[in-house]
């Protein structure tokens, strides 16, 4: 689910400046609603077509359901309604902020997600910050450097992209938790517990980012204006950080927005490996248990997250590149 091509939207904006900000905002909200509605509908269809008896899932899987319990469950969850009725009543609930009751956890989905969301958000944010920081440092220091330096880092980046988060997580735990005893291997207590999961989640993203960033940096460094800057006597640091970096930022943050979706998927694995509470682990067990309200709820949260990240990025474009104002 891509929400739009952000660059296009903003690039088109200057021509319609007079039509005002209000319209741009309305347009953005409209797109957000369509994205979220699409995500709900697609997930609803997918989950309903998976087969299996929902009463059995609600009762807890491999358990005997007495006729009385069956009736009670059907009545409570409205399972005898038609498919379309169930869909509409779910959408109606969403509009009122009610995501239903979890089959397995026996509590409101909103409450269950709210409890775990901060953990996952903290992880996603630190992983992103880590990834961006690593990408900045690596790309700034290696762009247009000697062939050996570049190819070494390119190889490392390829490995970084290819390494499964699961394996990376286990390796990090083995070395830094069980070996060096620097960081805890499990849980979400304190900053120390955030270090390894953020690296496991952020490293593949950092590798992707720094590849792209170095490419654009190198292209920028070949631009004629860089020659002008150098001619004015600017040092290498100033050339790279003040002038070239700014040009490559647009493509980098576009990529960050796109990768934010990947990060949510990665959180499922990383939370599992590091025994970290969060919505990633929650959706994992919800899918196994066919806990439909929880799966749908987390899909909505993920869609909202994606929309927010990309909106923020769209707002950043004109700040980074004044030509887009």
């Amino acid at each position, binding site marked *: 689910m891509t929400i739009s091509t952000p660059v296009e939207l903003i690039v088109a904006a200057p021509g319609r400046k007079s039509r005002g900000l209000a319209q741009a905002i309305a347009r953005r909200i409209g797109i957000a609603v369509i994205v979220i509605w699409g995500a709900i509908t697609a997930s609803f269809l997918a989950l309903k077509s998976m087969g299996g008896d929902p009463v*059995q*899932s609600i009762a807890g899987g491999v*358990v*005997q359901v007495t006729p009385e319990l069956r009736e009670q*469950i059907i009545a409570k969850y409205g399972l005898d309604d038609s498919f379309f009725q169930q869909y509409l009543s779910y959408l109606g609930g969403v509009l009122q902020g009610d995501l239903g009751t979890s089959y397995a*956890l*026996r509590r409101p989905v909103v409450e269950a997600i709210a409890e775990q969301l901060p953990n996952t958000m903290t992880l996603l944010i630190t992983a992103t910050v880590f990834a961006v920081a690593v990408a900045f440092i690596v790309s700034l220091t290696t762009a247009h450097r000697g062939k050996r330096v570049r190819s070494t880092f390119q190889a490392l980046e390829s490995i970084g992209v290819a390494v499964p988060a699961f394996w990376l997580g*286990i390796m990090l735990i083995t070395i830094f938790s069980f070996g060096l005893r620097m960081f805890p291997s499990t849980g979400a207590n304190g900053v120390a517990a955030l270090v390894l999961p953020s690296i496991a989640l952020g490293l593949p993203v950092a590798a992707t980012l720094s590849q792209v960033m170095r490419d654009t940096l190198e292209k920028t460094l070949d631009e004629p204006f860089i020659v002008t800057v150098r001619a004015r006597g600017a040092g290498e640091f100033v050339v790279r950080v003040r002038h070239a970096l700014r040009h490559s930022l647009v493509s980098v943050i576009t990529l960050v927005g796109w990768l934010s979706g990947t990060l949510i998927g990665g959180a499922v694995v990383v939370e599992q490996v590091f025994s970290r509470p969060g919505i990633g682990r929650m959706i994992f067990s919800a899918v196994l*248990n066919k806990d439909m309200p929880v799966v749908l709820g987390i899909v909505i949260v993920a869609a909202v997250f994606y929309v927010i990240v990309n909106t923020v990025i769209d707002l950043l474009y004109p700040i980074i590149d004044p030509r887009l104002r």
Partner: protein
Amino acid sequence: MLNTPSRRTMRLVTSGAAALAITAGLVACSAEESTTASGGDPVSGGTLTFASNGDTDCLDPHQSAADLAALYSRPILDSLVSLTDDGEVHPWLAKSWTVSDDQLTYTFELRDDVTFTNGEKFDAAAVKANFDHIVDPTTASALSAGYIAPFVAATVLDDYTVSVEFSSPFSAFLPSVATAYFGMEAPETLLQDPGELCKVIVGTGPFMSETGYVAQQGITYLKNPDYNWAPETANHQGAAYLDELVMTIVPEDSVRLGSLSSGEVDAIASIPPVNVESLEADSNLYTDSAAAPGGNYNYFPNTEMGVFADIDVREAFRMGIDFDTLVGSVYFGAFEPANSPIAPNTAYYDPSQESSYEYDADAAAKLLDDAGWVMGADGVRVKDGEKLAIQMPMISGAREQRDTLAQQVQAEAAKLGFEMVIESQDLGSYVEALGNGSYDLIEISWQRSSPDVLRTLFDSANIPDGGFNTAFSRYTSPVIDDSLADALATLDPDELTELYGTAQQEIADQVLVFPQYVFSYILGASTSAQGIEWEPQAFPIFYDAWKSE
């Protein structure tokens, strides 16, 4: 190394015969034996951290059917009676009990010195409140209500006398009521929304937890300093030794093992069989295991349709595959191969029917030849144009490498001329296939505390009819149905031995099950964590546990 020898510290053995001998020893020993032979005297104080392998849906065992609900709730909840692993019932919160002649009414005399940790008194009204809570439709009990299906009512006779009435004789009641699923909760808390009880429960047990169960994180307990009503089956009386007990959840096997060997936690659940040996090699660690009573991990043939409708084909499949060796090689001897639908430590287990499950590949091949199944060019036998094909649905992501075992069985079945197809399915589809009987072979384990599990698994009344049910081989035998029904109506040990024996022999004669292994809970612990005991249903309990320096 095992430096805390106890009746249950079974050495993990590789040969099936040795395993059986050890199990026999396990059943015979008494419960009063100490586990601290070489560990010194228990000391009070300290925190023990136990890393479990998974989440429960709900902490309240009246609601949940999860094994882990029993593990997490047991430190908080006591039961009316306690069960030893030889199936004997002992007093606990009930001092004594009587059973009416028609076996429809159980009357319990309760202890009068017990209080819940919220200050409520434990009395006859509290027991009634608990039974009423279990059968209340709003509790939507997934297990305990079904356990006591013939329940009619609990009646308060006086302050400390309560009777429980059934509509039909129910000899499995006491072993059932001894489990954590019938743990006694404080009556006031039972009035809350069921969802609240999924987080916080209050009982009379040796530990309490005000913060309760936190999904994905676990639960922290503090000791109940006033505890003075441990069952006589425990190793000590009075308050628990530990000040604090922490159960965390670490789903990844390798991380859980690492947390133990690096000393981050004191004990861990579910050691993968492959890791037992390396863990034992570490002098600071030990493993301990307990076999679960009730149904083994079994394969059940669908006797209603397909090739397994023919008893000769079932017999050939049972004889022609060396299940014992397969189990031994997949689990490195950590799980005992099964030669009966129920575990040897289940009460009224009949060892005489074990011989029916012996391996004889030549006899199996001959049986198929004689029955007219001709080996085809593709290695699959054919009779009257019908292939000797079987289809087995499996839940994807099965625990304990059950998929590996299934592949080995598949390979062995192929040698006999069976074409065995394993279909990996999600839980919902699996349960649906099970309900409709659209399978030739189905695999499931069904651990329970009493031999009444035979009725669960083989009584024709429990043949799945659309929804989930448990008589997976879908076979109707008056011999089985009658003897199991009669067993419910007697408490006489001799009669029970005979009735349950008859049923087990008939199950073997009709080839209604291909037993795989006896599920054992394998625990790993640091040598500083002593005295961890076992609930008869094979999960660890921490009342007698203590930490050494």
